């Protein structure tokens, strides 16, 4: 049903439609409206039976989800940034135990310095924790990805992180088609856990595994995650046939056929990028956008195929690997065919808006060779402040 609704609220309503039995959440900006929305639904009895745990920390939140999921309950939590790090120990625990927890990460920068605004440094810092990571490009997609996430998680017995840009999406009010209960129920069967705590069939979950078996466990986990690429695509296809719209999946190409240059990015910038590409095309420049929806597992083959024949790819990084360069950019560089020149840029850290003008200028700079390939470019940097601070570092201190 079409509603004029805040993104967080739509996500809350949609998660409720998926009938989680246990919700545990600790508030952190900019995730708060999601958990508040769910709290209201549980308190009012609209989401029932559901136990809502007001936990004492994010570590407690994910831990409670682990306990709930292991007991055979569908379970959900949400966090951002510092909260994600606070539960970092529990992230590989959840994936290692194979628990199908769904978690929204309202992407926010990591401190220090503390910054409550949007970039991708939080989710990407946990990219190797064994969770699936899906990036929503719009609030509609955020809603749709949550429904798909529960199906994926339970199909794979793996936890799934649905990432949506903090404030930019969570706090944006727009028209969203929130699904109805009947269709969600048809799409999402009741949770049938692979293993659970059952007095009638006791098992020991979470044994200690030594050098003799650990490698095999990890190998199997790696294979399993790679195989999930097929499931991500399948579930997206099933979603489309059930709900009547394309949403999710591995990649979102836009006007990439015969493109001279494509912008590669994740999350809400894809909407801005599409507008920029439309403008460029109107001006006769063959530009395109290649959105990556599924970051984990990494869609190597699909991305390689999508870039084939495209001479230039400009990766818009919303997070950096300090001391090592970019994250998304390096991934793309390793995957791209050798014929594609990959440009690595950083934009929009800590909530700095990624503008149409900025993106358009970026494309033009790339096309005109003004961006040196092989380097990481901070294209929205305040050069003046940067220069003066670097000069200050050079000053020799008078003893």
């Amino acid at each position, binding site marked *: 049903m079409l509603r004029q609704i805040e993104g967080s609220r739509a996500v809350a309503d949609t998660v409720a439609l998926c009938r989680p039995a246990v919700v545990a959440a600790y508030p952190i900006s900019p995730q708060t409206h999601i958990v508040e929305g769910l709290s209201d639904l549980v308190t009012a009895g609209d989401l029932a039976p559901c136990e809502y745990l007001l936990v004492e920390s994010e570590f407690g939140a994910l831990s409670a989800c682990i306990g709930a999921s292991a007991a055979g309950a569908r379970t959900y939590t949400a966090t951002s940034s510092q909260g994600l790090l606070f539960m970092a120990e529990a992230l590989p625990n959840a994936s290692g*135990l194979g628990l199908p927890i769904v978690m929204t990460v309202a992407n926010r920068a990591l401190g220090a310095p503390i910054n409550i605004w949007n970039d991708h440094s939080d989710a990407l810092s946990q990219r190797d924790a064994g969770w699936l990571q899906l990036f929503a490009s719009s609030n509609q997609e955020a809603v749709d990805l949550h429904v798909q996430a529960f199906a994926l998680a339970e199909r794979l017995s793996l936890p799934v992180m649905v990432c949506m840009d903090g404030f930019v999406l969570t706090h944006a009010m727009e028209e969203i088609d929130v699904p109805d209960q009947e269709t969600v129920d048809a799409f999402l069967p009741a949770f049938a856990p*692979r*293993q*659970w705590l059952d007095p009638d*069939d006791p*098992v020991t979950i*979470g044994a200690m595994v030594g050098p003799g*078996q650990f490698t095999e466990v990890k190998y199997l986990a790696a294979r399993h995650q790679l195989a999930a690429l097929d499931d991500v695509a399948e579930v997206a296809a099933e979603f489309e046939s059930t709900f009547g719209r394309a949403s999710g999946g591995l990649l979102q190409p836009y006007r990439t056929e015969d493109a001279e240059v494509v912008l590669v990015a994740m999350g809400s910038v894809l909407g801005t990028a599409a507008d920029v590409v439309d403008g460029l095309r109107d001006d006769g420049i063959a530009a395109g956008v290649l959105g990556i929806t599924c970051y984990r597992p990494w869609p190597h083959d699909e991305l390689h195929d999508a870039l084939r024949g495209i001479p230039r790819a400009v990766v818009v990084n919303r997070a950096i690997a300090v001391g090592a360069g970019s994250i998304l950019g390096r991934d793309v560089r390793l995957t791209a065919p050798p014929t594609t020149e990959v440009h690595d840029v950083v934009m929009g850290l800590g909530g700095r808006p990624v503008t149409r003008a900025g993106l358009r200028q970026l494309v033009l700079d790339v096309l005109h060779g003004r961006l040196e390939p092989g380097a990481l470019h901070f294209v929205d940097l305040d050069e003046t402040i940067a220069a003066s601070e670097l000069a200050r570092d050079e000053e020799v201190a008078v003893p």
Partner: protein
Amino acid sequence: MKLPYAVTLGPGSSLADLTGTWRTERPVYQTLTAPCGNSCPAGEDVRSWLYLAESGGAGYEAAWRAIMDVNPFPAIMGRVCYHPCETACNRGNLDEAVGINSVERFLGDRALEEGWQVEVSAPATGKRVLVIGAGPAGLSAAYHLLRMGHAVTVRDSAAAVGGMMRYGIPAYRLPRDILDGEVARVLALGVELELDTPVTDLDAALAEGWDAVFLAVGAQLGRRTYLPAASAAKVVDAVSMLHGLAAGERPLLGRRVAVYGGGDTAIDAARTAKRLGASDAVVVYRRTRERMPAHDDEVTQAEEEGIEFHWLSTIERVEPDGLLIEQMELGEDGFPQPTGRTERLAADSVVLALGQDTDLSLLGPDSGCRVIDGTVDTNGSLATARAGVFAGGDVIAGERSVTTAVGNGRRVADSIDAWLSGRPTQRDPEPNLAQYEALNTWYFEDAPRSHRPRLELARRSSTFDEVVTGLDADTALFEARRCLSCGSCFSCDNCYALCPDNAVLKIGPPGQYVIDLDYCKGCGICVEECPAGAIEMVPEEI
């Protein structure tokens, strides 16, 4: 469920890990000798029958039968035995010894009330044994021999059975109905009883064709000492006096009676004198209370009854109306030395209680039995030098008590049976005593001992009613359960419950235990926490 590899395991799969390989020593259940049974002259396994009695109900009969297997006179024991078991009882190190004697009495009395009987189930052997003397030794031997299937004839010079039990111990200590009741049970097994039949010639008796003979004639002669006495002075010996009383006579002792001696017989004589109407009974003894052989409990009862004691005194001379007493003092060596100081003590009669001697006139010069210091010499099997002739009780060397005699009777029966059948005698194994230190007494509740109540003093002085009454069933049960079961498992489940490795298996009620050597790591907690010290650690052979 579809369990992920290695992350999730099935239940109890650790049983594949045989942690018993870690051990350097292992616990082994053991049964040690309890000090109570070890010190019982009759050879009772006290701990075992207390264990049976602890159950109450049918346990009483089971306990009684366990006693009867060894000792046919529990009700008598419960009155006249000096209970060395209680002296040895480990519980004495904790609070007070278990009242074993009172429980035995309770069981014996209960058996008499309920009319419990024993039977002979062994087939007749065709052998015939003559027992000379119907005292505790003779009757005990007769009892055991009959139960082994032998034919037994008991010959006694007295008119009634019992020996010293009847003729030496006064009724206020051993009521006649109790004595008669237990003796009757033995006789009912088929004793050929010949009373009023003294045996004056052993060889003649043997010539009657017995397969074996048991000399149990006791020591029934009161020892006399030379005492200067006026011809009119009344001097009797305690043994004869008590014998006569039991036979129905009423000795005339006068109003003031002096008893000379320091043993239990002296005490019996003094207390009897009081009951016969003496206004004063005085015990004259040459040493001190601490040195006197009489048992402390008897002395205390005597004191309660108003009997006086003149310690460190000897009788110089007996006059018709009194005694001349010389005071002694203890020398440096602890022996009494004469001081030369004398005093007069008013007395109408003197009862001599200076010990007992045997009458071995039945032994001819060629009897083949050796006599040493007035007692018949025997070997470790209580056999005399004469083949087929055995001896026990007061007639042989050793402690003189009813319990010892009863124990001798059992050993003689075993020896005779062995000799008749050509099998070796049962040798008691070397005792491995359960030491107090090996127990874990934490697990026993504080439980003060129950003491048997006593007759009021007023009644004691005028009647021969029993002075010490018995415990009721509840109290007897309480007392039996104070036993620490030294060195023997009583199924408390501690080992089973406290093993961190679940390596003690409990097999069947009431609880027998087996160590699961596949998993026992040899930590030793079971040994440490066994209240009874019934487990020990034994090194593994590595």
